């Protein structure tokens, strides 16, 4: 077996192993979906009525892409927890003692998390349709939006891997993940138009990668997108790609470096 064959073979086996646990711990997927649905209910039915959209349009259609991106962002916590759990239980040690490709533990983790979260996304989109979210763009635009979101999951998974390798326990992974993701997802355009924010906070929200992704997918789905002008408002798709690439370029090598230095 060549090195490349081994990397693919072992990565696929790790992916298989990671996905195998999804139906065996159904709580994980169920809670991830319920949490998102809770946000949908909260914003669509509780706060939504008080949030006017500049330029009009359906708030629920505005909301759903924000929910998708938020959910995919929070998915990095799931990744972190899985890695921390494998470390704590000694599984990572076992894998490191095997003649398998060194890349497989992390590649298997990130690939399986992209597949897993794609599944979560499908369920969320169906719930979106149920509360009145509609796609007005073309099939091509729809597929482009989905591809962009899958690419974003990959970036979030790499961040999750790094967090998982850095923290000592599952509890810390969870706390730290929430601490990072809550402000990132809320100081964004996911739930409210950034024009309602105080002027000092507005640039933060506008340049936030979560805002870029949300705005880009809103555009592609043909949902209301009252974004302010300036580069982030004019080029959300370009900014999304730049952000996602930048996150992967920064976090994937850091995670790989951290993984390789476990033997110190």
């Amino acid at each position, binding site marked *: 077996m060549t090195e490349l064959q*081994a990397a693919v073979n*072992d990565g696929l*086996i790790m992916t298989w192993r990671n996905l195998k646990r999804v139906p065996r711990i159904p709580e994980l997927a169920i809670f991830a979906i319920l949490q998102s649905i809770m946000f949908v209910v909260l914003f669509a039915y509780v706060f939504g009525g008080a949030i006017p959209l500049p330029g009009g349009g359906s708030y629920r259609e505005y909301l759903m892409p924000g929910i998708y991106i938020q959910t995919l962002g929070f998915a990095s916590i799931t990744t972190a927890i899985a890695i921390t759990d494998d470390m704590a239980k*000694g599984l990572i*040690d*076992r894998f490191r*003692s095997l*003649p*398998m490709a060194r890349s497989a533990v992390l590649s298997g983790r990130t690939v399986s998390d992209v597949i897993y979260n794609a599944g979560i996304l499908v369920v969320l989109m169906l719930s979106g349709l149920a509360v009145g979210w509609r796609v007005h763009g073309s099939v091509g635009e729809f597929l482009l939006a989905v591809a962009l979101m899958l690419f974003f999951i990959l970036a979030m998974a790499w961040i999750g891997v790094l967090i998982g390798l850095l923290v000592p326990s599952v509890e810390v992974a969870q706390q730290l993940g929430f601490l990072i993701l809550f402000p990132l997802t809320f100081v964004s355009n996911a739930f409210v138009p950034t024009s309602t924010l105080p002027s000092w906070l507005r640039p933060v929200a506008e340049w936030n990668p979560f805002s870029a992704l949300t705005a880009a997918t809103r555009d592609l789905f043909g949902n209301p997108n009252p974004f302010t002008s300036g580069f982030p408002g004019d080029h959300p798709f370009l900014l999304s790609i730049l952000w996602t690439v930048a996150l992967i370029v920064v976090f994937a090598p850091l995670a790989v470096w951290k993984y390789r230095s476990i033997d*110190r």
Partner: protein
Amino acid sequence: MAAVEAEGLVKVYRSRKSEVRALDGVDLEVREGTVLGLLGPNGAGKTTTVRILATLLKPNAGSARVAGFDVLREAQSVRKAIGLSGQYAAVDENLTGRENLWMFGRLYHLTSREARVRADELLERFLLDEAADRVAKTYSGGMRRRLDLAAALIGRPRVLFLDEPTTGLDPRGRLGMWDVIRTQVREGATLLLTTQYLEEADELANEIAVVDKGRIIARGTSDQLKSQVGGERIEVVAHEPADLARAAQLIAPGGTATTEEHTRRITIAADGGAAHLVDVVRRLGEAGIRIDDIALRRPTLDDVFLTLTGHAAEELPAEEEAA
């Protein structure tokens, strides 16, 4: 030929507050087809040694070869030749026993078919065939350890590392584990085993190396070690602390008894086994010394440690436990 050889292994764990010298120059050798028992208390450096030999950890100094390959420069070749079963049973608890073994087999780069056949074979041998299709989460401690050992054997390793294979198991689990390890040994496996129990090393190993504070402080067969420690001993617990000195003089006239004031315990070497015990009871009875307890005891790890180092095995500071 040596299947495992290590020279001058040093490992220092640094944290912000302290520096723990987990290994302070460990040399060891395991010949092909033999079993070396690495005996020592928690924190002595046993696990660190195994982790270095299994390529999981880099030493700060020293070198080691496993199955003829350098653990630092030829780590991947070492990994092909070894099986590791750790102190914390590292199987995936969300996979079934069969799935675990298949996965580890595939990661040793067996074909899917080979991995399946080998998994069936090991499940049967380790009495896991009935539980094979249940997730490992539902296994008992003993079953988990057996599955863990099976996972270590799936690639037919030339050298097997077992890190405290029976720690935390109940007596029945321990005996079951000894059974499967003994089978491996009979079939000619080269094995490095760490343990806190002299009895276990005695039971399974050809040769024992005693580790303390990151160094090998003694090595030899179990008989050699025991003769160093002095074989069986008699322990007497006196009722009155005031009687201790007189009793010690009475049962060990040469002044060879060890006396512990606070437990009122006198320990002497037992050279005549049960007859000696009867003699001690008689002497104490005739002198009218009341005793609370008397027993004939085989040497334990504590005795080995007391003799070799002058301190008991569990006296190590707590912070070293983690290492």
